[in-house]
């Protein structure tokens, strides 16, 4: 008897609620078909005036994923782009650590963004997952640091717009050992001993986990790269750190580990490392720009890493940039924004100011090199090699770190190192 009344009231009230809800929520969603129509309605006036015969307001929307540090700079460029083109740009903030897996998981479902911020060492995984599109920077290609372009190149194709570099360098305590860069590991130890430092150098090994990343500059100075690079600079899957060069590096680790001089110790993790250097206990350390704020008490100078094995030390360079989704529904707008806005000098300058990292655009890198810290890291990165981005790299870290820890702790260097190489080859080919 009362049912029709109740149902009527129900339908009415829920309808009201839906209207209220949808108006709030739809612009927040990723660009679905309905959202596109909804959001572009605002541009209808401008777009409709200029178009005849085309559907009004179909300019499309692009979505960009970013982390918190870069959000403001990207938003500013996005506003400029929106004003110029009438397109809607939505900047979504996410945790940097989540970006890679979320991008791989969501692009195939159609829920992913058109552009995402990312690190270059994700590239292999992104290409194998088929979620990134190639990028053509046109005439501006030559304006970027070559290591940055090399890093985003996979199988001869460029996959992202680079914008910043990061690398580790030798940081030295000027009050103890002066500003001069030591050329070799032995020079460095000698200088530190002459200055009376308790420890010549602090090297982070991430405790018992191992940190082959920080150690890589020394490893390459023995001529033992993790993977062999081909002529174009792309990494092959051939492990390059075996053989005599690798054994020599392992021996060096052993000689400076628990059974040798003890300069390198697995008791040092990131925080202890920074504390040792900041307190003046260690005269040198190997760290990246992210750790500089941990050294407020030290008068420091950033220099290239000294050679331990005779060849130049080439630390890993990490590059960050913007990837383009392979499933973008608005690829033309997204590319336009990527290349002509984010890739422009003003865009890169704004990104640098929002989050000062070593710029990948050479012009900006030059203009900020009067900052001695940036200049120091830039010099170190120019010696460096991009961290391999091939998917095989994911399997390497655990083996590599563990072997280094065991050797530092006193395991037989040659056997441990060669077993690690064997296991690695078995894993990569098996």
């Amino acid at each position: 008897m009362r049912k029709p009344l109740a149902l009527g009231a129900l339908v009415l009230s829920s309808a009201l609620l839906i209207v209220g809800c949808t108006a709030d929520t739809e612009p927040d969603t990723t660009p679905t078909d309905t959202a596109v129509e909804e959001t572009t309605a605002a541009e209808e006036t401008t777009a409709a005036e200029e178009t005849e015969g085309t559907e009004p307001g179909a300019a499309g929307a692009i979505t960009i994923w970013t982390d918190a540090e870069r959000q403001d700079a990207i938003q500013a460029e996005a506003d400029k782009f929106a004003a110029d083109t009438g397109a809607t740009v939505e900047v979504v903030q996410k945790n940097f650590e989540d970006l890679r897996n979320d991008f791989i998981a969501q692009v195939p479902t159609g829920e992913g963004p058109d552009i995402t911020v990312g690190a270059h060492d994700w590239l292999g995984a992104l290409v194998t997952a088929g979620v990134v599109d190639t990028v053509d920077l046109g005439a501006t290609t030559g304006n970027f640091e070559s290591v940055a372009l090399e890093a985003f190149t996979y199988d001869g194709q460029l996959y992202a717009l680079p914008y910043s570099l990061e690398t580790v360098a030798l940081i030295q305590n000027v009050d103890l050992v002066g500003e001069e860069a030591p050329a070799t590991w032995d020079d460095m130890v000698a200088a530190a001993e002459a200055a009376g430092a308790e420890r010549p150098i602090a090297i982070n090994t991430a405790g018992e986990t191992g940190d082959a990343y920080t150690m890589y500059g020394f490893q390459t100075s023995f001529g033992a790269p993790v993977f062999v690079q081909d002529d174009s600079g792309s990494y092959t899957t051939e492990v390059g750190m075996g053989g005599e060069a690798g054994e020599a590096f392992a021996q060096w680790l052993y000689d400076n580990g628990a059974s040798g001089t003890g300069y390198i110790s697995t008791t040092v993790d990131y925080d202890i490392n920074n504390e040792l250097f900041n307190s003046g206990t260690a005269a040198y350390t190997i760290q990246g720009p992210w750790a500089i704020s941990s050294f407020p008490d030290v008068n420091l100078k950033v220099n290239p890493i000294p050679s331990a094995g005779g060849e130049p030390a080439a630390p890993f360079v990490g590059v960050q940039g913007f990837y383009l989704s392979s499933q973008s529904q608005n690829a033309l707008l997204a590319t336009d924004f990527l290349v002509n806005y984010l890739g422009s000098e003003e865009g890169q300058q704004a990104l640098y100011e929002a989050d000062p990292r070593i710029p990948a655009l050479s012009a900006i890198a030059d203009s900020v090199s009067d900052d001695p810290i940036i200049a120091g890291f830039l010099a170190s990165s120019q010696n460096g090699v991009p961290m391999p981005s091939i998917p095989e790299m994911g399997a390497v870290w655990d083996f590599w770190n563990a072997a280094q820890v065991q050797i530092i702790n006193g395991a037989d260097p040659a056997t441990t190192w060669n077993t690690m190489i064997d296991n690695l080859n078995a894993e990569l080919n098996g």
Partner: protein
Amino acid sequence: MAQSTSAAAQPRTTSPTPQPEPHARRWRGNGAGFLVKLALMAIVNAFGVLVILQAWAVESWWILGASVVLLLLADIVYFSKRALPLKYLFPGLVFLFIFQIFTMGYTAYVALTNYGTGHAGSMEQAVDAALIQDERRVDDSPAYPLAIVTQEPDVVGFAINDEGVVRVGTETEPLTEVEDAEVAENGTPTAVPGWDVVPRAELYADAELQETVLSLRVPVSDEADDGSIRTREGTRGTIYQSSLEWDPDAQTLTNTDTGVVYSPTATGEFAAPDGTRLTTGWYVFVGFDNFVRAFTDGNLAGDLLQVTLWTFAFAALSVLVSFGLGLFFAIVYNDDRLRGRKVIRTLLILPYAFPAFMSALLWRGMLNSEFGIVNDLFFFGAGIGWLSDPWLAKFAVLFVNVWLSYPYWFLVSTGALQSLPGDTLEAATIDGAGRWRKFQYITLPLLLVSTAPLAISSFAFSFNNFTIIYMLTEGGPGFVNSPSRLGATDILISAIYKISGVSGGVADYGMASALSIMVFVVIGIISALAFRQTRKLEEF
């Protein structure tokens, strides 16, 4: 619910008089309560319809179907007078469905696929990716200023400016020179005789045209080897070449340069007859492959056995030791003669109040062999490698876990002790039982009745205690010279995390799901057996 039905059923057998309806049925419901219900249901419906609309928009039919069914059920249940018990059960059932059954079902589904890096999307997307990766910019190609031009009806072409010479072409017509074209200062053609130049604003506003422009390839000449002009953002044209061709009927990709044919394989990849594969694959149903691989992979099997044994040892010892310690303290501090019991009890509970991952990180620092306070204070600065020796690391993990969990057992035991029947203990005392005998035959059995189920759940929790392992040792120290990436303190769940490769960026979700299901089965069996045992305790 149980009460209302029994209340309705019982009187019928005892008294012959017609029984009044239970109050819930008697209530005609047009007062304030009905309005509240209506408002609540309106919210539920609004939310449901919203979800349905969104699911429709993103074309996820499973979610759409499930939401429609759930919403209809909700309306039927709450607006019919018949389904009284369901009114109470329904929310619980919905949560059960969404958070338990769906999650488990989905995990099982993933376990039967090879979903992971390299097998992330559909076959169609893998073809897209292969074509994208194959199409290469010709190395010395300049970037030509480019304009999009149209001709009636529906012909779209590119006009490029090749150092002052404007050339126009379409998909079928290679580039040919056009006389009398006008170019802007930046080189972009602005007027081409016989063609309409599309203004930039119009391109921005027309999504369909954008797609056409992106997929348009204008041949440079009649020779296919010369490549074709392509634009990415509508203002610059560059020469590209591609060699792969997709044949939708045969479902194969053919390299037109070498003639190699890549056909789809059962594992979701394109492979040539000689075994070379294209980079991007798609995910396919692989049946029980993941489960078989977990048992037969020579690199894993040996270390997984060690890890499994340690997992059982870790979980069992964690529960036994922390239970014993907690019970001991509970008995000691349950004595009425003790002063300041409350203060001491509060202090004892403190470790339980810290977040476990913080405590684990603190202990990691304190156990550092060179800089840690444990070696400095208690072992005269000896460099004992608490976290670098396999056995000491096991001990350290166990010790920290006991330190974290004994306050819980202290709390539980204290509560249970205080609720023990005093008369039984008194009777035992009168019968001349000593302290130990009373504890052995009365206190402990009675205590176990209420705490054994907690012990079982605590075992299951320790079995999967990822936090403490990862924060304290990350599973290390690694097995020496082992081909797996596992370590001495890895328990099954942390081993799964390492094997799945999620942390390294090369994820194998199929394998990880299969292993998780195995862990779930193991814990399920142990818990079932243990609960059966505890029923015997209740016979006291």
